[in-house]
C-alpha cells in the first residue's frame, strides 16, 4: 500500500450566521418562535460569519482508519460533509482517491410509506449501490438486519425505531467503497446491535478500506482507529496516535463547563416541538459546580421551550458519561410530567434532577441532554456533551470506600445498605 487515499489541503468552510433562516419561510410558519424571530430580524443589520473549518490539512494513507474527535461545533461534521461532497469548501481543496461512501445517518433515503424491502433498494441506491449489486446482496442485507421476513413487506413507518436502525445499518454495512466516511451512526440502537456494527466497521477496516470515523464514543474510536485528529473551533489541534489525541481531548475539556445557556433560541438545539434553553449543575448546599465532593448531592437543572403541539408531550433526558465514554445511566423527567399535561400553549419547562451524594464515581462526568417525545420516538433537541464537571473523593472514612486509599474502580460509587452481623465462633465452625 502506502498510497494516499485522502489528501486535504487548507480546507476552510465559512458560514454566515442566520443566512439560511433569514430568507426561508421554514421557521416563519412556526408559531413558537415567530415573536423571537421578529425581534431578531430588527437587529440583523450585521451579518455574522464564522468559520466551521479553518485551514485543515491532513493526509490519510489508504487502508488507514482515522478518528475525528472534538467538542460539539468543533467542525467534525462539517469536515465530513465537505469530504463527502455534500457541501463545498470555501477555501482549500481535498482529493479522495477511490470510490467514496458516506454514512451521515442510519437509514439515509428511507421513505416511511415504503416497505422494508423497498427501502433496502432505495437506501442502497441513495448510498451509491448499483441495481445489480443490490440484488446480489439483498439476502445478505436482510440476514444482517435480523428482521423477520414477514416484516419485510410492512411499511417502515410501522417499524420500531430499533428495527429501522438495524435495517438502515444493514444496508450501509454492505457498501463496498474504498473510502468510508462515518458520522456517529453508532450512537443509536441497542448495545448488542451497536457491538455488531462496530464489529462490521472493524471488519471493513481490516480489508484495507480507508475509514474516517467521527464519534463522541471514545472507546469506539480507541478500538477502531489507530490515529485520530482532534478538532477545535474548526482547526486541527492534534493529529496523532489515537490514545494521545483522546487523552489531550479529555484533559483539556476544550471549553466544556458546568453550565450551558442558549441566549438566542434560533441558535439553540431544537425544533418546533422543543428547544433547549439552558442546563446547569447546582451542588446542593453550595460550592463550586466545576468540582464537586463525592458526598454532596447535585441538582441538574434543564430548561427548555415546548411548542404548541399538545399531543406531543416532550420530556427531558439526561445521559451521564464518564471520560472513557461509558454511559453511566440515563434518566428523564417523565415522573414530573403532570405539570406539562395541563399546559396547552408554548411553555418554558424547568426540570431538576437530584443526584444523591455518594453515587457517582470519582472523575469527570459528562452529560448529554435531549428533549424527546416517545410516541413517535424522536429527539427534538439534542446537545451531546452539553456540560461536564469533576467529582472528587475527599471522604475520610465516611464515604463509600471507607478508610481505603487504594484505587477504587467502577463507573459509579453508590452508597449501599449493608447488613452486617458478627457471632461467636462455635464448635460447628
Amino acid at each position, binding site marked *: 500500500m502506502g498510497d494516499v487515499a485522502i489528501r486535504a489541503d487548507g480546507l476552510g468552510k465559512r458560514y454566515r450566521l442566520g443566512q439560511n433562516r433569514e430568507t426561508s419561510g421554514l421557521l416563519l410558519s412556526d408559531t413558537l418562535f415567530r415573536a423571537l424571530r421578529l425581534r431578531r430580524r430588527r437587529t440583523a443589520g450585521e451579518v455574522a460569519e464564522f468559520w466551521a473549518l479553518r485551514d485543515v490539512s491532513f493526509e490519510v494513507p489508504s487502508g488507514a482508519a482515522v478518528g475525528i474527535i472534538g467538542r460539539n461545533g468543533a467542525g467534525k461534521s462539517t469536515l465530513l460533509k465537505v469530504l463527502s461532497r455534500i457541501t463545498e*469548501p470555501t477555501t*482549500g*481543496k481535498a482529493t479522495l482517491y477511490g470510490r467514496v461512501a458516506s454514512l451521515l445517518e442510519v437509514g439515509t433515503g428511507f421513505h416511511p410509506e415504503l416497505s422494508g424491502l423497498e427501502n433496502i433498494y432505495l437506501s442502497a*441506491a441513495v448510498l451509491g449501490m448499483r441495481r445489480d449489486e443490490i440484488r446480489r446482496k439483498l439476502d445478505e442485507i436482510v440476514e444482517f438486519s435480523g428482521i423477520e421476513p414477514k416484516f419485510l413487506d410492512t411499511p417502515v413507518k410501522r417499524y420500531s425505531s430499533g428495527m429501522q436502525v438495524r435495517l438502515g445499518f444493514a444496508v450501509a454495512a454492505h457498501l463496498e467503497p474504498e473510502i468510508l466516511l462515518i458520522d456517529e451512526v453508532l450512537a443509536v440502537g441497542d448495545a448488542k446491535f451497536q457491538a455488531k456494527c462496530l464489529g462490521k466497521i472493524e471488519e471493513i477496516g481490516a480489508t484495507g478500506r480507508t475509514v474516517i470515523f467521527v464519534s463522541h464514543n471514545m472507546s469506539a474510536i480507541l478500538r477502531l482507529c489507530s490515529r485520530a485528529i482532534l478538532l477545535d473551533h474548526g482547526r486541527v489541534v492534534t493529529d496523532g496516535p489515537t490514545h494521545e489525541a483522546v487523552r489531550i481531548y479529555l484533559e483539556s475539556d476544550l471549553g466544556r463547563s458546568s453550565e450551558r445557556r442558549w441566549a438566542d433560541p434560533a441558535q439553540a438545539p431544537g425544533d418546533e416541538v422543543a428547544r433547549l434553553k439552558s442546563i446547569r449543575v447546582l451542588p446542593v448546599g453550595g460550592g463550586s459546580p466545576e468540582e464537586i465532593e463525592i458526598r454532596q448531592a447535585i441538582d441538574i437543572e434543564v430548561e427548555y421551550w415546548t411548542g404548541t403541539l399538545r399531543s406531543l408531550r416532550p420530556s427531558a433526558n439526561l445521559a451521564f458519561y464518564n471520560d472513557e465514554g461509558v454511559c453511566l445511566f440515563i434518566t428523564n423527567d417523565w415522573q414530573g410530567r403532570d405539570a406539562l399535561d395541563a399546559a396547552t400553549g408554548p411553555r418554558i419547562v424547568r426540570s431538576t434532577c437530584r443526584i444523591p451524594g455518594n453515587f457517582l464515581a470519582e472523575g469527570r462526568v459528562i452529560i448529554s441532554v435531549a428533549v424527546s417525545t416517545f410516541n413517535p420516538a424522536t429527539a427534538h433537541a439534542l446537545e451531546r456533551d452539553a456540560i461536564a464537571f469533576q467529582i472528587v473523593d475527599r471522604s475520610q472514612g465516611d464515604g463509600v470506600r471507607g478508610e481505603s486509599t487504594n484505587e477504587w474502580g467502577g463507573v459509579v460509587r453508590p452508597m449501599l445498605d449493608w447488613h452486617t452481623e458478627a457471632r461467636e465462633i462455635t464448635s460447628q465452625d
Partner: protein
Amino acid sequence: MIRPSRGWIGPGIRELWQYRDLGYFLVWRDLKVRYKQTLFGAAWAVVQPVLLMLVFSAFLGRVAGIGPPDVPYPLFALAGLVPWILFSQSLNAASNSLVSSQNLISKVYFPRLLLPLAGVGSHIVDFFIALAVLLVVTLTFGRIPGATVLWLPVFALLAVLAALAVGTWLSAIYVRYRDLRYAIPFLIQVWLFATPVAYSANLVPAEWRGIYALNPMAGVIEGFRWALLGGPRPDQAIVFSAAATLVILTGGVAYFRRVERTFADMI
C-alpha cells in the same frame, strides 16, 4: 477532487449518467409512494383529465367559437388536457423536488439535477395511461388519427422539457425562498389560462400570436392537437415555443448548477 467551484459550469451530463440507477429508484419511489394507500391507484391518472374534460364541456363547451367547428368540444378539450396535465404535474413535482428531499441533500452526495429530473420522470408514466384513454376517446368519436400521430412523442417530449426548464429554475429558487410553496400552484393555475387548453388559439388576435406562442406550452398543446386531430400545422407556435423552452432550459440548468453548491447549507 473537492475545491470551491467558481463561475458557470456545465450541466454534468456524464455524472448524471453515472447516477442513472439512483434516478431510476427515485422515479420508482415517487410512483410507489403516490399510489400507496390510494383506493383507485393509477386510475387517478385517468380520472383527472376526464373529469376536467367533463367540467370544461359542461361550462365552456356551449360557448360558440371556443373550439374549432370541426372537432367535438370534449375531444378537443381532452386532447389539450392530457399534455397539459403532463406538463403541470411534472412542473409541480420538479419544483418541489429539492425541498421535499432535504434529508437526502443534507446527508448524501449525488448530482442534484437528478431530483427535478426524477420528479418529471414519475409523471411520464401517468401520461402514458392518460394517452391510452385519449386514443380510445378519439376513436370513439369516430376519428382515425393520420400519419401525423407519429409526432405525438415529439410534443410530449417538448412538454416534459418545458416542465423541466421551468422546474429547474423554480426548484432552485424554492430552496431559498419558501414563498414559492404558495406561488407555484398559483402560477400553474394562471398558466392554464394563458395556454390554449380550454379554448382554441384562434381566439387570440393574429398580431398577438407571436408573443402568445412564446409560452412554451402554447406550441405544445397546439402541436399535440394537430398531431392527433389533424388540421393545418401550427408551425409558428411550435417553433416559437420550442425556442422559448430551449432558452429557459439552458438558463435554468446553468442557474441550478451555479447555486446547487449552496443547497446543503441553505436547506
